[in-house]
């Protein structure tokens, strides 16, 4: 089991209902965590829509999660 801190922004924050949560989870990759949370919160995004940041840097979705990682799922950006 791994302790993961998750931060939500924008549409994901609104749908999830809060900004941060900490999970102790058996999932091994960021991708698996995304699917687990999508099932729980009914996020209106597919995996193709989402990028993943781990410890404040973009990472591939199949990155293995480590104890204490901070994970952010990035909905489609729209700056500018």
């Amino acid at each position, binding site marked *: 089991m791994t302790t993961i801190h998750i*931060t939500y*922004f*924008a*549409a994901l924050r*609104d*749908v999830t209902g809060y900004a941060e949560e900490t999970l102790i989870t058996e999932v091994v990759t960021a991708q698996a965590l995304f699917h687990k949370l999508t099932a729980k919160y009914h996020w*209106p*995004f597919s995996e193709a829509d989402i990028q993943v*940041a781990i410890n*404040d*840097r*973009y990472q591939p979705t199949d990155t293995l999660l480590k104890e204490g990682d901070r994970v*952010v799922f*990035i*909905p*489609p*950006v*729209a*700056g*500018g």
Partner: protein
Amino acid sequence: MLFQLTDQPIETLIGSLHPHAGGIVTFEGRVRAVNDDKKVASLEYVAYPELALHEGHAIINAALKQFDILEARAVHRTGHLAIGDIAVWVMSAAIHRKEAFEATEYIINTIKVHVPIWKKEHYSDGEAIWVRCDRCTDDHKHSHTVKEAFSL
């Protein structure tokens, strides 16, 4: 006046630059009153600051490497903005203008797809929508949106 001649100094807010800088191109992105045929009342920009600053710096550094420019900078605003407010400002300075045009366009295009900043449009009918990838790859494609009706 569309075209003027003046013997007085022309002033902008860019300030002094590298003495070899002959061509400076800026982009400013402003909040539009209408987007996708909907009347926009105001806009809210939210950033993921730690990653946004890292990616923003990387984009400027990539432009400095990739184009023959002397300086480049960008600033993005967050929070609530009104119609006409400047949301993002980009500047490139080069010896010759061609490179400054290319670099500034590269920087704004890349900011729009890589920097984790999100935009919630508040419409005059009370609806509010997180804009999804606003024309990030095609200036003429209509934006796709994630609807969250009445979340004001």
